[in-house]
């Protein structure tokens, strides 16, 4: 009896240990699929199953990345691209925030401005690219404005909705506590609208990035998009890949940054975080 119980206990401990050993940390799980893909890819390239001009191997791309980084070409192009995207995002997003607040606060400004803005919104912003080129030429202005146009709407709409979504019951509290105008905005309306505004920021950043790619591919003499187009002319496929990966990584990093901001600013929220 005793030994059987002991054996059972021992067995349980073992399975518990095995389970513990098998438990992979969450952040590692995301690497699983990419690593397998990379391995298969590298093998297919090394075994010359695929031509290098169609699909260069991961190592070749890495090497090209290294060369671009050392020569300073990459940094110079990235600097220009990021400046464009940031400029466009700040202009468009800033105006979106401003208009969202103005329209959100007042029914009057809403009835004057919102219908026109909603009409503009239905125009796909990439479709106006030719027009922007006609008006502003191929230089920086047209690119920044194109990015700004795309970045405007998500922040505008989400700010507006966030402000209008503030719980009316909390306004009663603000009246009972005799909040001043300033405090009504800083202690009630803006914090309540913040989750929505940050969502707008994330969406706008995504669109700004997309606008940048389009603007640079259309025609430019510097920037990551230019680097891609230039490499394509000389069939330097690995350089094209480097450009694409840079776009992806920087896009992901900015998104992660806003999510970090969300976690910091919205730590009071206790919403559903997903199951395992």
């Amino acid at each position, binding site marked *: 009896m005793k030994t059987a119980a002991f054996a059972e206990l021992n067995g349980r401990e073992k399975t518990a240990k095995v389970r513990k050993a098998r438990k992979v940390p969450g952040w590692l799980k995301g690497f699983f699929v990419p690593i397998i893909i990379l391995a298969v890819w590298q093998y297919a390239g090394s075994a010359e199953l695929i031509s290098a001009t169609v699909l260069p191997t991961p190592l070749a791309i890495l090497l090209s990345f290294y060369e671009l980084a050392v020569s300073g070409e990459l940094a110079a192009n990235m600097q220009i691209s990021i400046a464009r995207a940031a400029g466009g995002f700040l202009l468009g997003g800033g105006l979106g925030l401003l208009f969202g607040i103005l329209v959100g606060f007042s029914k009057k400004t809403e009835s004057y401005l919102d219908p026109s803005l909603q009409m503009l919104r239905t125009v796909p912003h990439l479709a106006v690219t030719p027009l922007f080129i006609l008006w502003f030429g191929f230089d920086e202005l047209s690119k920044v404005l194109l990015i700004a146009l795309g970045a405007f709407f998500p922040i505008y709409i989400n700010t507006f909705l966030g402000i209008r979504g503030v719980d009316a*019951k909390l306004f009663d*509290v603000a009246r*009972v506590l005799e*909040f*001043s105008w300033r*405090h009504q905005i800083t202690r009630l309306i803006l914090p309540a609208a913040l989750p929505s505004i940050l969502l707008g920021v994330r969406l706008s950043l995504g669109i700004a990035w997309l606008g940048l790619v389009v603007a640079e591919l259309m025609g430019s003499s510097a920037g990551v998009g230019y680097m891609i187009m230039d490499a394509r002319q000389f069939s330097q496929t690995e350089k094209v890949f480097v450009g694409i990966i840079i776009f992806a990584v920087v896009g992901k990093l900015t998104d992660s940054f806003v999510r970090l901001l969300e976690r910091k600013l*919205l730590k*009071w929220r*206790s919403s559903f975080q997903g199951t395992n």
Partner: protein
Amino acid sequence: MTVSIHVNEKAFGRAVVLDDIHFDIQKGEFLTIIGPSGCGKSTLLKIAAGLDTEYSGSVEINGREVTRPGISQGFIFQEHRLFPWLTVEQNIAADLNLRDPNVKKTVQELIDIVRLTGNEKAYPAELSGGMSQRVAIARALLREPEVLLLDEPFGALDAFTRKHLQDVLIDIWQKKKITMILVTHDIDESIYLGTQLAILRANPGRLQKWLPIELLFPRNRTDTSFQYLRQKVLEEFEKTEHSVYAEGAGI
């Protein structure tokens, strides 16, 4: 100081909700208002707070007419209505500056009074219903109201927490000598807390009975005098048309 409430008529559209309700209470009284659901208790309290001004009549606190909500008429809603993005101490301070040492000190005192010491930095999402309601009470008390109006503040809580908060409230009332008006649908609660008890009837809401309660504090629910009063309130309830609704009365 007196609180004097005169409501000739209050209607929503065609429906008359309150009809001819007049009473005065003295400084330091604890008035409890009880009545069937829908008889207009919340409406009456909102009028007293200045949150509802569309009625015929007048409300005066200390001889000053109440025309809009304000900090001298503290209001505790049925749900706590805390700001979810502010911590306990920030919620209590609300629009006041916690960096001001005077504010900080009073906030801390109030946190101790409502027995929440140690939870200063918690967010409302991390609090139980009873704790949140205590924060709301502290928030109103910080403004040193002349009168505190409470609309079924403990209605959503379990019996245990409710009893605890009732004792907290009596404690505050005795320490701060604030005039209290508390709406409830719990007969025991109305007798346990009140020095005056108003029974309302429905359709339209009218004053059915005004009952002074002269039991000494601390009160004991099992005393014969408590039970006798309870019986009396129940009888009044039965005289009103919709007498069935009396949650917590044990019938």
